[in-house]
């Protein structure tokens, strides 16, 4: 098929290059010695990496992003775990519908979710606050946590739970002592996916926060608008490297 996969090989190489080239191309921009975003011409500098350590701007945003990501990923994982186990135990006739409902935030276009959440948060006075942002992130990432947990539960042997119940464990005991320990890797995966998703969330965040609460993506966005600060390139390089490192670490674990 596909001409002895020569075409496949070529296209795979081309799309690999296409996907990775931009991530590499940012690097030289981050070492420019100039004040504005440009290719360095002979002169290299680390000043834009130093600028990231400004506690009032970049560091503050890194802190905000971390706080929001930690809170929303833990909440989303807890919600998703309860939901997944509920579906798994009860196998309700409406299961498909309920799962579809929880996956709604994936189906709704991000801009639409952003507008809808903007109206709601404006209504209850949580616009541009940390609780408002955490709520928005939880809604947006819960579907991904649910997918991870349902996947883990589908590999769990029902007999384990039945055996626990037969031996006199209450429903709560069987959940805490049998089900949860058995899906711990799924729980971790769900939490990790949620953490990354929240850390990187920019579509809803750009709408529902911005003056008091500035996450890292929002700060990058503002800098790109206002004055093409080369610190954007430096922070991009750091985030690309961090992401690559995390993927490598997760790979070596499995």
């Amino acid at each position, binding site marked *: *098929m*596909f001409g002895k*996969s020569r*075409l*496949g*090989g070529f*296209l*795979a190489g*081309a*799309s*690999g290059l*296409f*996907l*990775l*080239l*931009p*991530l590499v*191309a*940012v690097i030289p921009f981050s070492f420019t010695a100039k004040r504005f975003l*440009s*290719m360095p011409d002979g002169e290299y500098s680390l000043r834009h990496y130093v600028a990231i350590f400004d506690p009032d701007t970049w560091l503050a945003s890194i802190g905000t992003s971390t706080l929001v990501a930690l809170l929303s990923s833990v909440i989303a994982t807890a*919600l998703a775990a*309860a*939901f997944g186990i*509920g579906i798994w*135990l*009860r196998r309700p006739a409406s299961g498909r519908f309920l799962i579809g*409902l*929880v996956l*709604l*935030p994936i*189906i*709704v*276009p*991000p*801009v*639409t979710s952003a*507008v*809808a*959440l*903007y*109206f*709601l948060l404006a209504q209850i006075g949580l616009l541009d606050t940390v609780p408002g942002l955490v*709520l*928005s992130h939880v*809604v947006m990432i*819960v579907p991904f946590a649910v997918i991870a947990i349902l996947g883990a539960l589908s590999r769990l042997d029902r007999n384990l739970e039945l055996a626990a119940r037969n031996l006199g464990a*209450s*429903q*709560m005991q069987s959940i805490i002592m049998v089900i949860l320990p058995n899906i711990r890797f799924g729980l971790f995966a769900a939490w990790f996916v949620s953490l990354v998703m929240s850390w*990187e969330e920019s*579509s809803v965040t750009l709408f529902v926060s911005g003056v008091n609460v500035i996450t890292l*993506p929002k700060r*990058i*966005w503002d800098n790109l608008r206002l004055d093409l600060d080369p610190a954007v390139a430096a922070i*991009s390089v750091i*985030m*690309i490297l961090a*992401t690559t490192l995390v*993927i490598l670490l997760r790979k070596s674990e499995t």
Partner: protein
Amino acid sequence: MSARPLALSSRIPARVAHAGLLWPSLGVILAFMVAPIAIMLTYSFLVPGAYGGVEWTFSTAAYEQILFERDFLDDSLTFTPDYLIIVARSLLQATVATLLCLVISVPTAYYIATRPDRVKNIWLFLITIPYWVNLLIRTIALLFVLRDDGPINSALIDVGVIGQPLALSYNGFAISLGLIYSFLPFMVLPLYSAFERFDFRLLEAAYDLYASRRVAFFRIVLPVMRPGLIAGSLLVFIPSVGSYLAPDILGGGKTLMIGNLIGTQFQAARNWPFGAALSMILLTITLIVLFWLARRAAQQQMN
């Protein structure tokens, strides 16, 4: 003993316990996704307030505004296609991005899935990096590549192919490229996992029975791939049609898509009902595409 507080819960009937597990998530989705969409629908039929917000007067003006312009003096409506063009452009850009992603991804995913394990893992790693890197940063990175002083233009100038840098950024072409770049991994990965599960003995059997490559592809491979193709298409189309970052950063804010038009209603234009109406239209388009593809998938399964 530590089991004591747990034992209490055994008195709670299983039905109630299960409902207690399901409801927190359902409640969050209902309160923070379904209810907000209901608010949005309501707002789309109201009148904009003077400084943002809404006034509680029923009106279909927000929807009329998409097609018509109201004259200030005599209140007459004249047809203006400006907004319609933006909606059409969004649909076109998203369709083009989805089709091109399909064309690129099918051979790519097939190639990766048929490599030996070691090579396969390297390819998957390379595809997963952009999948995980922040979308905003990836869009900016693509802008760097397309800039006048970016690697493509400087390479072409150094080689002497062109004298002046090509206008690669801040136009419709850059937006198309940006959408493909943003969402290509969403197409490659589901297709890859579909190929991964594909039983290649089926293909050998088809060849043994004198099927041509074409026939084998369309009759054997494609039907098995269909769920992956549909999942991938949705994952590319839905975020593309409402895309906000790519048109803004790569299109330079000149070639708007519906996402940007919506965004403007909450910044400079301060017209909440119009923003709400546009969002409802975007949601409707998405749901139509979703149900159309889902029905096609269901029909294929029946056959």
